[in-house]
């Protein structure tokens, strides 16, 4: 009998995908044949053939090296923004049938299927298919993943739990994620018992690890469409801060040293700022306005593995792009995958889930 777990969350960036990845890899390591299913996806990018695909589902497919086709893994892909015309109410049943049929086919021969829901619990309501309904339809137990912000997170979880129960779904429990070191002790002492007293099992309290959510230089390089001039070896570095370098070299030195994991954005003509950034241990340097730097500094950047990326945009545009980019794990990102696995392994009661 295939065991299925439907993982959903109350808000974006809760670490839902990480939880799914961890569970899938864990199940596999225990010898189970694992499947991954995403009933309703968001078409966030185009594939080679020009079709809308759900990027996260694609990422998962690649990391887990799944044999099924993208269409089977993600049978319904909603375009962003305007999609209602394509999904008239009359077709609700068809949609539900399509989901069930794909799931049936995908789960053949599998011991465990991880089902990933959309970021928000009620996405799909327009067609009568919010997550609890779909989970019930597929006989899956729900796992709620929620990033712990403050005590109001408890409101979100209790509400979600009630909602799921109302819709007739069975909830296995919740995993609290992204708990800061300072708040961990209280979370375990106050929050967890509070939720459990209200009937919601807390199956994990996962601490925050900045490296997971942070952007890497590679992420930024792709987002800003830049050209790597030097320091290719350092693309894996994580970025926590952005500093614009327009001041004197001495001031620059001071600020760069005080920041941690910073990306320095400056003009290619500011050799002094570029050198100060390298000396102060910046993670990477972006040069704007297509101004090439003095070639003399490139060998140093290579030696120190500090990426220097050239873009055509101006500083303002570059900053805007960078600040709206979200760091996600990509296939091949072995480092972060390992961190995520370790984190979840140590902080969840995974045996009660799988």
């Amino acid at each position: 009998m295939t065991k299925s777990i439907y993982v959903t969350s109350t808000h974006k960036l809760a670490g839902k995908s990480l939880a799914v990845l961890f569970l899938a890899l864990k199940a596999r390591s225990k010898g189970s044949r694992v499947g991954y299913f995403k009933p309703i996806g968001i078409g966030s990018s185009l594939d080679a053939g020009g079709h809308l695909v759900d990027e996260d589902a694609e990422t998962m497919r690649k990391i887990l090296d799944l044999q099924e086709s993208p269409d089977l893994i993600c049978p319904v892909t909603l375009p962003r923004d305007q999609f209602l015309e394509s999904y008239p109410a009359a077709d609700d049943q068809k949609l539900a049938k399509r989901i069930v049929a794909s799931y049936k086919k995908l789960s053949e021969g599998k011991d465990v299927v991880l089902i990933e829901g959309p970021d928000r619990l009620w996405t799909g309501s327009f067609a009568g298919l919010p997550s609890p309904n779909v989970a019930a339809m597929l006989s899956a137990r729900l796992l709620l993943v929620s990033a712990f912000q403050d005590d109001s997170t408890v409101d979100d979880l209790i509400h979600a739990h009630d909602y799921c129960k109302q819709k007739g779904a069975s909830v296995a429990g919740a995993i609290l994620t992204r708990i800061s070191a300072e708040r961990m002790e209280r979370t375990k002492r106050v929050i967890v018992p509070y939720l459990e007293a209200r009937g919601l099992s807390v199956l994990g309290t996962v601490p925050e690890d900045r490296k997971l959510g942070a952007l890497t230089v590679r992420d930024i390089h792709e987002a800003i469409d830049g050209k790597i001039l030097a320091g290719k070896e350092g693309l894996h570095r994580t970025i926590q801060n952005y500093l614009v370098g327009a001041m004197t070299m001495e001031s620059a030195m001071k600020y760069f040293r005080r920041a941690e994991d910073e990306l320095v954005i400056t003009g290619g003509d500011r050799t002094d700022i570029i050198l100060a950034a390298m000396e102060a241990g910046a993670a990477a340097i972006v040069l704007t306005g297509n101004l090439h730097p003095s070639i003399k500094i490139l060998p140093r950047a290579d030696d120190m593995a500090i990426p220097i990326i050239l873009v055509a945009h101006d500083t303002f545009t570059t900053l805007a792009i960078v600040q709206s980019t979200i760091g996600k794990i990509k296939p091949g990102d072995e480092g972060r995958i390992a961190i995520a696995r370790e984190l979840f392994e140590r902080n969840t009661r995974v045996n009660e889930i799988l």
Partner: protein
Amino acid sequence: MKLESMFNPRSVALIGASRDPNKVGHRILRNIIEGGYGGVIYPINPEATELLGRRCYANIGDAPGPVDLAIVCVPARVVPLVAEECGRKGVRSLVVISAGFSETGREGTSLERQLVQLCRSYGMRMQGPNCLGLLSVHGKLNASFASTNPPAGNVAFISQSGALGSTILNWAVQHGAGFTNFVSLGNEADLDAADFIEAMAEDERTRVIALYIEGVKNGDRFIQVARAVTPSKPIIALKAGTTDVGIRAVSSHTGSLAGSDAAFAAAFRKAGILRVDTMEELFNLILAFEAQPVPAGRNVLIVTNGGGPGILAADACDKMGLELPLLERPLLEKVEAQLPPQASAHNPIDVLGDADEKRYALALESALASNTADAIVVVLTPQAMTPQDKVAEAVVQASSRSSGKPILAVFMGLDDRSAAIQVLRKNNVPNYLYPEQAAGVLRAMCNYAEMHGRAQDEAPRFADVDDESARRVIAAVRREGRVNLTTEESMRLANTYRIPVPTAAIATSREEAAQLADRIGYPVVLKVVSPEIIHKTDLGGVVLDIKNKEELERNYDLVIQRMRVAMPQATIRGVLVQRMYPSAREVIVGAVRDPQFGPLLMFGLGGIYVNFLRDVSYGLSPLTEKEAIGMIQETKAYALLRGVRGQPPSDIGSVVDVMLRLSHLMTQLKEVVEMEINPLFAYEKGCLAVDVRVTISREEVKGGEG
């Protein structure tokens, strides 16, 4: 002498010698030959058997005798091969003129590294690459592509710019300045400025070393080397890149980080190097130092044949901190007696417009005999009756008496080619166009004399410091992946080096805060402790002068709430409960780790206006007591610390102690990149570091003597 084979080679090979007059390889060969070099010359070129009348060899291995020095000007990619051949031949020194190395980027850099490896493996020393070459004037060796041969003398010039170098050579000829050696540093891939300073220090003929630099490779070594040399031979340095704009330009030119100007100024002071700000000053000083003795004091006697220029000269000297005392009575009367009544024997001695050489001679004699004159400035204006040439000779006469008093001529408005000027030049009397230049030169000479008259003191080592605890504080911060210490951590660090900090402790609850306040004693100060919040006062995170428990409890919650509102993402570790101390004069003591010279200490007036007044002074670690006191005395804050308007003075000694301890801390704990105590309260007795901020380096740095 160090680098003997470079400066006194018995044989020179030129690899890349060329028949083509447009090639560098041709020009250098011409220069070597026409310069009059008396040793063996081996032009090397596989496609010639004879060049400019000399037997030419296909490669250096073919040269029949040993080769001390090889000049290389073949294309960059071939240079390593050539260097290998030189190594096998047993060549001792290389001068690589060729460009195309680290100054061109990646490939050039790896080529350069290869070249240095090769040289090291054969024990060869290399100048350059990418340089103008070298001149050894006494040995008549011009191994450069600058065709000018300067006169022989006692100045060594080391230049980081080839272009400036050729300018100096031309100038030397025009002004009769004599040189021993000239070195164009190039990329400094192997030998750097410090190496050449060492070599020139050992060269008996060199009495003055002049330097043009934009940066240094190894700051510590540069200071150490220079420091050992300057007491016996002045080093005059022109550093480019002193302004922010200049620093930017230097970075582009050299591709390396140009140190801050404050650090360079402090480095030069520590090394006893005379710094000049302009090319003009550089030339002026060279002329004086090479020809005249250093004065024993700051007293100057001016002799002039024009009242107006005499006054200008007096003004200039005064501005330069020089003194103009009168001649002693007997000498004064003697001079007065022999001059017309309207002349003046007071300083400046005005011998009048109709003076002949005898009047000048009289004044000069008296100056030489006087105990009140350490240096003499002779001003001459071209009046109709003035026998310029004869006056020049009188000056030369006086100069040749070796009195130990420098004589500087200011023969104004004369044609450069005039006989008078030539006489001065030929006889080692520097002549300046304007009295201000002479005054500036004398000031530099006096500074040099004073710098090296003082005994050097050593930086103290404090035995009462707790190095281990200090390292533990830093390690704990690093484990959390932070580089900025919280206020509380910074204070603890300062305390390990016995820098006085306020009595304080962290509370994580209101009750605890109240208990701590009771123990510490009211009034107290509350400060929020958070790694992310740096400017607490601006955000309302500090409450002063809490007088009792009720105020404390109220403000405890308030101060945390304010922080939560202002910076919701910040993690609050607790609240620091600190004893409130009476206020006092505020100063800043800080240190920053300069990438070239290491810890740079700063002292200045503190308080909220410091960023605007910028009354600061700098000094490099290891800081000595004399240096620390000097730093304080340099600032305007010093006047306040000494006590003004009836207020008692502050305990400057305790401030000095803090500066020295900070210097020691920065030397021992290499991971600290910045540490600032602002404000440091300077009381009548003792001082207190009221707020401390520390930043550590990104990665762990091993080292220190701990």
